């Protein structure tokens, strides 16, 4: 029996939910191992990763559905790029300072 559109959508949603929950667990496992010394770089680095919305912004701005969605996409694109580029750069600047001396 062929699936209805609604059933197909539900399958996609459940798969997405599965990925989400499992990724949260992976996140918990890794982050708890990060030492307090690196908590600031962790925040700014993970902050840069949360700029992944950039991918969504590219899709919104690039598909040029209407002028309005393109404008929304463009604003999102600028904000997310600042987040990503600035985030990774400043994290790199910070981490480069952590040195061990004899």
């Amino acid at each position, binding site marked *: 029996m062929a699936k209805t559109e609604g059933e197909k959508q539900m399958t996609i949603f459940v798969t997405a939910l599965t990925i989400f929950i499992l990724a949260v667990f992976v996140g918990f496992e890794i982050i708890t191992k990060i030492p307090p*010394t690196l908590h600031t770089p962790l925040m700014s680095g993970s*902050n840069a990763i949360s700029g992944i919305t950039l991918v969504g912004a590219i899709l919104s701005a690039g598909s040029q559905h209407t002028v309005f969605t393109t404008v929304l996409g463009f604003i999102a694109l600028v904000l997310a790029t600042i987040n990503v580029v600035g985030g990774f750069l*400043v994290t790199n600047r910070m981490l480069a300072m952590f040195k061990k001396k004899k």
Partner: protein
Amino acid sequence: MQQATIINLSYLIASVLFIFGLKGLTHPRTAVKGNLTAAIAMLIAVVVTLLDQNIVGFGVIIAGIIIGGAIGMLLAIKIKMTDIPQLVALFNGFGGGASVFVAGAALIEVSVKTKNPELHLTVATVVSGLVGAVTFWGSLIAFGKLQGLKFANDVRFPGQQLVNSLCALSAIGAGILVVLNPTSIIFYWLLVIVASVLGVLTVIPIGGADMPVVIALLNSYSGLAAAATGFVLGNNILIIAGSLVGASGMILSSIMCKAMNRSLGNVLFGVLEPTADTASADEVYAGKVKSTSADEAAMLFDDARRVVFVPGYGMAVAQAQHAVRDLATLLESKDVEVDFAIHPVAGRMPGHMNVLLAEADISYDKLKEMDDVNPTFQQTDVAIVLGANDVVNPVARTDPKSAIAGMPILDVDKSRTVIVIKRSLSPGFAGIPNPLFAMDNTLMLFGDAKKAILDLITAIKES
């Protein structure tokens, strides 16, 4: 292979690299590489997204990336290390803002294509708009507070919690309207406006020392907003990267809350008030506080074998980290063992002190966590408290009624001598007097943190 397959496989590679990148952050030795790995993952995700066949306008994309990239680069290069907390708050807000606009654009597209979008899509859009707008405005207010801007001063008024609750309920109401009328885009913007007000109202009453929790929480929100946007677009890389960040922020907030022995609810909605029977400053300090001079204090180091620095936000304000490094180096040249005791909530964001001391070239293995350093205070000859207050207040251990009762503290009072460098006897964020300042083994060195340390260096060299 189909384009969509190539894109999704590349997203999988990027996700794995994000995880390896975060794993690299578990040690200072591998951290630079970890950050680079995550940046490469981002690059892969962005480049393959450009292959998507729905994309027709590359000009807009290139323009956006150039503008955003230039601004981001400039901010990241120009920022002073003491100002990192506000920069992180600002970037965080931008990420949340981006989610709001992407989800809004997606809702418009979907509602034009089909008159009846799937329920999970509209719910995800609501979550994305709500969390994104709270993150954006909450982060902007946090940025303003950390930068010391007037508009972001702590605002408290009677009935604040009621107003906040009503605002939260209105936001949920607006969200339900969006779900019921997905094709009326006006309801989405209504939701965004209400959520923006909620973001401002939630963060505006929260004071300086609670900032580490707020920033960590907003960090978590920006990840969750990205993940929700992933649900809207059916995009796995957004879901995975967003949930990794969401988890990271949640863990950090809970670590910060534990370090203050407060619940998240108490930090966000509670007010720290000295209880009625808190000893007044006069009772605690009168006639017992001993003030000292740099020359006098310098003599303490003559026969010291172990010295521990306890930095707080005051060190950041005075930009004293380089002077501290010089003093530490000087003491080490006299065969004194020097360590740094870092309280988890010292400063304005998690790990704030560590970054400043690393900037001043202090080896990271000298930066000791609370649990490791506390047992060593008994063998410490001189503890130098530098612009820290509540995190060294012994009342937390002794008075169960105090505002900071049960908060884990650095046991500096167990050292042979404590030098407290501070401008005045003014209370810390908790607003209570600190009996440490009046103890027999404590000497107060009043003044600016940087100047006091420089004076100490001169005095030690001359003696």
